């Protein structure tokens, strides 16, 4: 009479739309949480989901209900020893109401906290950067795997049976198992032949040689044994083996160069960070391993860890070439271009000691550009360009794997990468 339906495998996730609606509505709060998270996270750790906090008052759904006060009788269960007229101290207001209900109407209650997924996190991060959808898709996708042949195994599914291998191993098994019998068979047949020949000569000898009978029986037995060796045995069957290999499987190194002179304030650094994050995301999609090198500079350059890179400040003048020199040095020492895909990303507010700019240009053109896959430069500042920009413009004209961009807002970051994303398909080289 009852009808049973198995809905376990129907994939429709009905809640997804409503979830999306919720995100849409609290976009600003969620964005803020994501923004804070980006500021606090390491570049390499950018791809996890995030806990989002939204103040409860913002998401409450109001309805008419009673406030505290007035007169009412409440029936409770589990009386121990109360009798009418007993008084009970009022519970402290903190315990007023039970967990879930109270949170809707109280002030200063806990925030509404929930987890967003990696995809959702990146989606919101990209929103600021105004990435085109195609790029979003490319960058968010999980690395591709390719199945490659990797020898043969003795277990697998029927579709993967390798006929040649299986028959070959059947053949060798038949030989291995059958050889002793065949040898013995041959001996026995020879002996029998001899004996028969002898008996033919003295045909009149009445008692037939008992040996002949034994031999004949043995031959029969051996033949049956050989017959019984199976043509093919489950043991023989060999399967093609395939393993998942990440695609492409090469390595890259990303040099982050940043000016940390006094004029780079927190806001500029935050833009720079997003710029580096985007490049990192792109690289970590395209390469199996991506290493990061952080070089900060004012008048002299220094290789530092990420923490120091973003969060410590220094003052003083600016000599950009020092960073480029250090980058070149490190490239030569640790990342030979024959083994590594090298990417350079430089962020600066454009300040440079005027006489240094031609030196930067030389360094880039002679030493660095020939070795790198791509070099991108962003200038984060609202003012006029200075000598560095001009020097770099000539590089951009000469190399199409050099890009530069003047950035005042997050959304200006993406154009730096436009070329890079376009070329994504032919980027990896081994």
């Amino acid at each position, binding site marked *: 009479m009852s009808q049973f339906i198995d809905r376990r495998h129907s994939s429709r996730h009905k809640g997804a739309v409503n979830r999306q609606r919720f995100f849409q509505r609290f976009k600003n709060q969620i964005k803020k949480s994501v923004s804070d998270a980006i500021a606090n996270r390491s570049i390499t750790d950018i791809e996890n989901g995030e806990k989002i906090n939204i103040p409860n008052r913002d*998401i409450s759904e109001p309805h008419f*209900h009673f406030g505290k006060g007035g007169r009412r009788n409440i029936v409770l269960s589990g009386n121990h020893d109360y009798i009418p007229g007993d008084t009970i101290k009022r519970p402290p207001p903190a315990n007023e109401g039970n967990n879930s209900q109270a949170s809707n109407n109280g002030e200063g209650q806990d925030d509404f906290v929930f987890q967003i997924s990696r995809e959702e996190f990146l989606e919101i991060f990209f929103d600021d950067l105004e990435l085109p959808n195609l790029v979003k898709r490319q960058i968010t996708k999980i690395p591709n795997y390719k199945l490659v042949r990797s020898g043969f195994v003795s277990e697998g599914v029927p579709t993967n049976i390798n006929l040649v291998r299986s028959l070959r191993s059947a053949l060798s098994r038949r030989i291995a198992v059958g050889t002793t019998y065949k040898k013995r068979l041959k001996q026995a047949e020879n002996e029998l032949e001899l004996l028969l020949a002898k008996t033919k000569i003295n045909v009149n000898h009445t008692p037939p040689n008992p040996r002949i009978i034994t031999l004949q029986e043995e031959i029969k037995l051996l033949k049956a044994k050989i017959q019984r060796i199976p043509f093919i045995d489950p043991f023989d069957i060999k399967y093609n083996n395939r393993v998942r290999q990440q695609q492409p499987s090469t390595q890259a190194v990303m040099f982050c160069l940043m000016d940390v002179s006094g004029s780079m304030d927190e806001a500029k650094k935050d833009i720079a960070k997003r710029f580096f994050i985007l490049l990192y995301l792109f690289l970590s999609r395209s390469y199996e391993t991506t290493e990061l090198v952080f070089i900060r500079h004012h008048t002299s350059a220094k290789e530092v860890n990420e923490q120091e890179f973003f969060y410590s400040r220094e003052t003083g003048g600016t000599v950009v070439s020092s960073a480029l020199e250090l980058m070149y040095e490190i490239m030569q020492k640790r990342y030979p271009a024959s083994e590594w895909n090298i990417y350079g990303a430089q962020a600066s507010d454009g300040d440079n000691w005027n006489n240094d700019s031609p030196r930067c240009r030389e360094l880039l053109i002679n030493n660095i550009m020939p070795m790198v896959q791509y070099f991108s430069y962003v200038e984060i500042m609202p003012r006029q360009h200075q000598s560095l920009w001009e020097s770099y413009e000539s590089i951009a004209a000469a190399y199409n794997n050099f890009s530069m961009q003047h950035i005042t807002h997050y959304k200006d970051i993406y154009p730096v990468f436009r070329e890079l994303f376009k070329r994504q398909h032919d980027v990896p080289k081994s």
Partner: protein
Amino acid sequence: MKKSTTHHKHKKQHGLISKASDWDFELLEKYDHAFAAAAEKFGLDIYPNQIEIITTEKMMDAYSSTGMPLGYNHWSFGKQLLTVEQSYKHGNMGLAYELVINSNPCISYLLEENTMTMQALVIAHACYGHNSFFKNNYLFKTWTSADSIIDYLVFAKNYVAECEEKHGVETVEVLIDACHALMNYGVDRYKHPPKLSLTEEKLRQHNRSEYIQSQVNEIWRTLPKKSKKTDLAKNTRFPLDPEENILYFLEKNAPLLEPWEREIIRIVRKMAQYFYPQRQTKIMNEGWATFWHYTLVNEIYDNGLVNDHFMLEFLHAHTNVISQPAFDSPNYTGINPYTLGFSIFSDIRRICEQPTAEDCKWFPDIVNTDWMKTLDFAMRNFKDESFISQFLSPKVMRDLKLFSVLDDEDHIDLSVSYIHNEEGYHKIRELLAQQYNLSNNEPNIQVHNVDVRGDRSITLQYIQQEHRPLETKDAKEVLKHLYKIWKFTARMEVVSETGDTSTFYECPELEKPVTNTI
């Protein structure tokens, strides 16, 4: 528990249905058969069952859409979903073993990870217990229409989606927000609504929008010139009688709404109405279902269809369901509706079969009657409030050790007013019944007047009782929502017990009413 003492007597060996704790569809069907046979023996009247096995994700989905298989989209359901996901992942909350929908056929969702025993329990509980309650309780019979609810949901979902396409998601969202805020005041408590029917809804929907609009215009046509605002307006109130169904009033009378907006108010109102019986029968519904899973499982145990291992797991689960922590326990979250309902229904059966002298005094009408008939009568004709005041026996009050506490803002301390003794029984029963009277749990708020001839403001009145105040912050927010629909001043007055009327809040705040331009 008394069943376990009698089972030795007549254990017919029909062969066990299952021995292991894994379930499969064949076994589910066998259990369903067994329960169907038992239910027939006990005279349970049910809708055909449609039983769906779902995953935890789907269960969470269902949770967040008020248990319905489909519904219109709104961010608040997304919020619900996130809340459920969050607390489930952190282990703060287990998911229900089942979810059942008041529809014909009666749709039940069973969680795939239940053991065989649990699946059997929930089939008995939902597909026979709740199912028969939905089909026969008078509130469900009069207020909901199980045959067409799914169709109506489809209609509502599509209609809202259409509106979103035409007028923008955000516009629709703002309206639904406002409707949700007033949803509890979107039900007719006493009047009879016509039943829902998809074909009629669709057919009427077009005509209705025109018709309603013409009606609305009719009301507002009586608008005289502004300068002639006299005491005439004071004499004729509109509506003539206060209206408790605020959403209904808005749907019919809000001055500046588009027809589609009225239709959306109607949809939210219909949903509120559909769920209203459930809110009024929590104790009965859960008690009934629990009583029947207990009785049906014991029946198949007596017939030798399940073994002791099954029974132990079943009793463990059953005991958990009806556990009632004491008021001072950290786990106390109020009176457990399963416990209270199960206790009363079980007690009715006891009173019918083995009455005591006390029962003869308290329940002269039902002692020594056929328990099945009496239970059936109780299930059909009551709601929580009347059910408790009719059937809560001194024995159950003693078992649960019920007592009442007076919380009076004028006293520093709370005081115990009644306990489960001779003097207290009647009082406690009355108080508990009132505790489940929805109109006592929600502030009594009605549409009092619309200034038809003046500034078109709408005035709600909160009729105060027992000095209980309105929660101010939320109430103001709700009034702002009301203003979004009404589009002219929305005002709330409080009528105290002495009859004094004072203005509680006005939206927009302390500003000139919106100028009258249509």
